């Protein structure tokens, strides 16, 4: 529960950071429709093809074990759903952001986050999304989603997040 709230907060913060891009996405995706998507409880007004829609419909992030860059099984199904969602909105391009927890050094974690972003990107591509639509970026440990210094927070922060460009 707590994790979901934090996830949504993280997505909103990112949205705020890219608000000018969202306007063009909104114009482009107006006809897409979200009729078939069931996951939007409480977020039923999400604009189709938007970040809120992605979060509400299929989830925007996958998580990693400590020091691992392997997408876990639960993450694989999230990425498959993301691929299906992206197939519905072919004009949407995304960033795949890689992140790490705070228990590593900054520079190594940047490289680790890049590897996580690539692992998630590769699974989207394997599910049919064109690599041209995905730009990877790593923030290492420098943009945590959860701010606590504890195992639960670190688990939230070892992640790859898909954000609509």
């Amino acid at each position, binding site marked *: 529960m707590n994790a979901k709230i934090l996830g949504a907060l*993280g997505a909103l*913060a990112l949205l705020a950071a890219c608000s000018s891009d969202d306007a063009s996405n909104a114009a482009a995706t107006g006809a897409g429709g979200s009729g078939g998507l069931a996951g939007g409880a409480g977020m039923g007004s999400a604009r189709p093809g938007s970040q809120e829609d992605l979060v509400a419909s299929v989830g925007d992030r996958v998580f990693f074990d400590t*020091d691992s*860059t392997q997408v876990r099984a639960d993450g694989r199904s999230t990425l498959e759903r993301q691929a299906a969602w992206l197939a519905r909105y072919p004009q949407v391009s995304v*960033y795949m952001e890689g992140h790490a927890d*705070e*228990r*590593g*050094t*900054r*520079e*190594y974690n*940047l*490289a*680790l986050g*890049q*590897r996580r972003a*690539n*692992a998630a990107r590769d699974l989207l591509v394997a599910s049919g999304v064109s690599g041209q639509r995905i730009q990877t*970026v*790593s923030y290492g440990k*420098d*943009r*945590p*989603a*959860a*701010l*606590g*210094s504890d195992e639960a*927070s670190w688990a939230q922060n070892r992640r790859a997040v898909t954000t609509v460009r």
Partner: protein
Amino acid sequence: MMTTDRRGLILGGAALLTVPAAARAQGSSQGAVIDITRARTDPIPIAVPALAGGGGRGADIARVIGANLRNSGLFRPVDNAAFIQSAEAAAATPRFQDWRVIGANALVTGRVEDQGGRLRVEFRLWDVLPEQQIQGTAFTAPAAQWRRIAHLISDVIYERLLGEKGYFDTRIVYVAESGPRDRRTRRLAIMDQDGENNRFLTDGSFQVLSPRFHPNAQQIVFMSYFQNTPRVYLFDLNSGRSEVLGQFPGMTLSPRFSPDGRTVVLSYARNNDANIVAVDVGSRSQRQLTSGNGLDVSPCYNPDGTQIVFNSDRGGDQQLYVMDAGGGGARRISFGRGRYATPVWSPRGDLIAFTRISGGQFGIGVMRPDGSGERILSEGWGMEGPTFAPNGRVLAFYRESQARGARGEGYSARLSQIDITGFNERQIVTPTDATDPSWSPLLA
């Protein structure tokens, strides 16, 4: 001695009267001049009364000198309240018994003369027991640069009494951090080594990390997320302009200049690997130095530019490796318990400092370039990123405190410095949270 730095500041250091050989030979047996290997346990008692003249500036300069010497841990400035002879009288003629009885082995005197916007500062360093002058020098500089004069004098005192170069006339570039950690603002900032003259170099509209000085101290290489693309940039301190260093289709990070300043070595992350690449600053030509599986990051040259130490997980977890500067021949040097990262080579060549993560603790340590003689200098919940002072005697790094609450309450990041013996750790005060320090070479 006459030196000119690149901003046109002219610091004339004119010798007043020096008796180097005699004073040092005699001093080393009974006076203030001592062997640095003994210094840690036996800081030199030194009196630094206000320099005469200058309308209070002489007192300011003496205060900065005293603070520098005290902060080094190798000197113990005598309390001003104990002084018997007045500063003014001492500047004319020291009465050595007055300084001897309050326990001072060395004495600094001097005079400040305001020459219409420029200061001429004459200073003398005395060995109190044999009653001899060790050094006499005059510096001239714009009045606004009085702190630099104090740092230059501090360096002369350090060098004459300890027998090796000081590190006070230097700056530290770092990342100034503010705001909650999930929406952090990170700006390039620069300050004197004592935390004074702090100045922000970027406005915070884009994130920056990992600034490092050029050997001429006038340029900085750093990583930025400008336009959401993590790349390495050069920043010129005179013009305030930055430019991207080379076109890479992936992320470039952890840059560092070669000792001659002609090359930047960095890590280039693409697909599932990160490799070490050397970029020629003039031609921008690239040369890949490592390849294959593993994340190779945080490269750093040795002082003569023939070898590079870096951090790699090629063997399974993060360890330190040394290779030839042209690439190839990488051999692992770290074999202790835990993961090793952020290696930096001492300007003296004798040590490599690093971050170690072991048993849930972070630590700053040093080892010899062959991996022997490992010592952890400081340990705690979070710390990383050591950088050597130009004389190789002191390290700066950043220390993080653990968040106590779910919103990150209690988290902080602050700069520390510590002697390479592991003694005298102290915080460098900054206006905001601070990370990623890089120590400049001596400026003059």
